[in-house]
């Protein structure tokens, strides 16, 4: 996996904080990678050109076609190539896997770098982390397979074990370093960076194992024809990653597009859904939610207001209180989301949560399937409820200005145990304090003032 970053912000004089953060990663990574490459050069025998240049070319091609499998995370099937090369180098006489793999990784990261756009962070950091991962994997292969003089079929099990170990090391080091880089550079903005990490992780290790075994098969059979078919297998690996990214992308983009539609109807709710999803994930992380749970909460938050698309815009935008009929119509949006998404099987757990987001902790409130009178709704529904209420208070409405974060948290705490789940409110408060970011208008501390401010724009605040 490789990093893909935005262009750094340049300002005269002092380095921009984001540049500083990038330097803190790029310099040590690059140095360590360089040390690994140079020591491999002195310690190990150099590989023959045919053992690394063709593989380096394939490696680069696969890296160029890497797909975005998760936010800002790019993966490719290049691990297959480097493992094939490693196993071939380890069992050939007079060469070592370590140097061959380090060379391939170095060549790969150098070529993929997008120098035209003057990105410096990405190639430096990727060079370091790829060379380091490749070196460690190579050492493992050399230790396990270096003494095998002529590879026989009965050695295949040994090769399988050795390549699994090496692939595991490669993927582990690689993901730790990339994770560290993302945490440092993007900070808390990128919550729970990769929800599908486990699936992707095991997929990569499996690809490494396949790559290693194919290398062994090539050495044993000694048939160039096999090598051609192996290149076909690399393509299959690429296709499987592509399929993975498609699965994730297509639904998200469809839902997001429609959420935008909903919000375009009303300037006051613009961005609301994305913010609720953000808050909900913050709470989820604080409560120790893992990959799929987080993903479920995020999706539920993204669809929680879908039913509003079918509610007359007048009501959504209406200033002042709604009468009973209007209120009933407004309430219907919790059911409508069920009706609209009834046929989308994979969204059903999220629909349950979304239709319960107006359900209260003490069993009051309203909602569809996700709401049962007198019962506490699911924890996920409580999370979406808190996130929704907080964003509703801290953003402007047609009838009032945005309230301050302090006031909103106070309200959440006031109704904690009745309308809101106390644990969720606590977790949210903690998470908000951690980010240090403030939401809402700084000084608007009561509802009445917020309403008056909206009605009389000439009123200004001092404080």
């Amino acid at each position, binding site marked *: 996996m490789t990093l893909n970053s935005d262009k750094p912000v340049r300002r005269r004089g002092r380095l921009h904080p984001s540049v500083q953060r990038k330097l803190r990663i790029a310099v040590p990574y690059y140095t360590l990678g360089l040390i690994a490459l140079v020591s491999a050069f002195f310690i190990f025998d150099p590989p023959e050109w045919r053992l690394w240049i063709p593989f380096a070319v394939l490696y680069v091609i696969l890296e160029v076609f890497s797909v975005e499998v998760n936010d800002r995370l790019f993966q490719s099937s290049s691990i297959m190539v480097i493992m094939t090369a490693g196993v071939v180098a380890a069992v050939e006489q007079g060469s070592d896997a370590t140097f061959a793999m380090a060379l391939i990784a170095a060549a790969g990261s150098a070529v993929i770098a997008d120098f035209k756009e003057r990105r410096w962070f990405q190639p430096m950091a990727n060079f370091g982390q790829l060379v380091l991962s490749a070196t460690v994997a190579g050492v493992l292969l050399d230790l396990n397979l270096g003494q095998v003089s002529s590879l026989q*079929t009965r050695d*295949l099990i040994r090769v399988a074990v050795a390549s699994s170990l090496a692939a595991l090391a490669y993927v582990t080091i690689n993901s730790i370093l990339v994770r560290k880089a993302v945490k440092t550079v993007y900070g808390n903005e990128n919550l729970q960076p990769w929800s599908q990490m486990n699936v992707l992780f095991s997929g990569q290790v*499996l*690809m490494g*194992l*396949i790559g290693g*075994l*194919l290398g062994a*098969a090539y050495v*044993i*059979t*000694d*048939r*160039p*024809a*096999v090598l*051609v*078919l*192996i290149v*076909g*297998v690399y*393509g*299959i*690996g690429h*296709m*499987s990653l*592509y*399929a*993975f990214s*498609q*699965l994730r*992308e*297509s*639904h998200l*983009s*469809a*839902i*997001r*597009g*429609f959420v*935008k*539609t909903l919000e375009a*109807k009303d300037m006051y709710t613009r961005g609301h859904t994305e913010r609720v999803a953000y808050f909900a994930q913050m709470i989820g992380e604080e409560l120790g939610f893992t990959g799929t749970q987080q993903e479920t909460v995020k999706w539920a938050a993204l669809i929680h207001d879908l039913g509003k*698309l*079918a*509610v*007359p*815009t*007048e009501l959504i*935008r209406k200033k002042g209180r709604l009468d009973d009929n209007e209120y009933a119509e407004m309430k219907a949006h919790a059911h*409508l989301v069920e*009706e*609209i*998404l*009834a*046929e*989308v*099987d*994979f*969204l059903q757990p999220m629909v349950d949560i979304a239709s319960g987001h107006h359900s209260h902790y003490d069993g009051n409130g309203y909602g569809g399937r996700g709401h049962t009178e007198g019962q506490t709704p699911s924890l996920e529904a409580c999370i979406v409820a808190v996130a929704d209420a907080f964003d509703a208070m801290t953003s402007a409405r047609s009838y009032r200005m945005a309230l301050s974060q302090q006031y909103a948290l106070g309200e959440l705490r006031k109704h904690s145990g009745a309308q809101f789940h106390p644990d969720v409110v606590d977790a949210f408060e903690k998470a908000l304090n951690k980010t240090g970011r403030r939401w809402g208008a700084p000084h608007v501390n009561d509802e009445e003032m917020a309403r008056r401010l909206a009605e009389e724009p000439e009123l200004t605040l001092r404080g």
Partner: protein
Amino acid sequence: MASWNPRIVTATSWLFPIVTAVLGVYAATRASTTAFALLVAAAGLAIASLIDVATSNSGNRFTTGLAVAAAIPFVFSGVDGVDTAGTLCAYGLGLSAVWVLRFSRGEEHDVLLPTLTRRFGGYVAYGLVYSAMRVGVFSDLSGGWEDLLPFAVALVAWLIVEVVLRALLILGPRELSRNYLARAILHDLNVFMGLVLTGALFGELFIEIGWWAAPIALLPYSFAHSAFKRFQETKVTYKQTIRALARIPEVSGLAIDGHADRTTSIAASIAKEMGLGPSQVEDVEYAGLMHDIGRVSLNEPNIIRMGYTDDDIARWSAEIIAESPYLERVADDVRHQYDPFRKPGEQDDPDISIISRIIKVAAAYDWKVHQESLSPLQALEALHAGAAYDYDPEVVASLRRLLEGRGVLMPVRA
């Protein structure tokens, strides 16, 4: 096959397992491979053919059997050439067993016969071409690059036979034109190649290391398998999502119930009938589902006050679609869905794509039948009246053929 006499289809279908089995047994008597190995290969082919990998838009089923079939000539080849008879025997016995197994699972004759005949033809072409090339120029397998040449040529032969047989056999649903089928094959080439390549990998390795090849080839195979399964799921669930979202105007009472769904199915049938490729048919489906999505805006108070035209709805729909990354490519088609095919005194408007024209006809037809309560024949007559000006005459003609084929229209008598 629907256009063929069902009795003939059933009779021919019953003949299929008998003919292939007889052929298989006859080939077995002339094979140099042991009877046990032949039976193992045939059984492997039969079992693998029951494992579905993917079904393409055009209804082509891909199974693990393709990988096994690709491996068989490799496995039955020695240093001095291929056991051609053995290969054919495995294909014949294998497909005979597949027929029995699939028939016992309750599959219809008009599905079984064309699919299995086509498969058998493809396999035989592949096996024969591979063997012939190995007998001739590439008699000794040195293990070099040139070993793959017989495989590559045989693969091309396989594909050609498949395309020809598909076009000949699946005349059934009239909407599927031959042009569409040929494009569908190219469209599914990645699935086909993924399966066949892992099969060939197994074969190449088997020559040298025997059954050790199985675990090595099985791992990449499982990757390919899961990738195609996932592609399949993605398509299905994505379409589910879009269909669900398309119902928003209907759920909120701003459009007539089921209009988007019906328009889409008519439009897709017309597109197939006219011979558009699979990806264009897909675009027609998305455009059809989304063509009235702009009606959600009819909630807006100032729109209710000011009134609106069809063109406004097309514009709003296009604006909404343009926001969705995967749908944006049909935004223009939806934008022009109400534009007349040709303005008086002008040439055809190149801005109006074939997709827009199809949607225009399909939506108008559904509106006339379900909102204005016209009979299908009356609706079609109304469309005919507007053909060449409002509606593309070719699309209207295609709709007429479609409706006639379905028996909805009483054919016009002189």
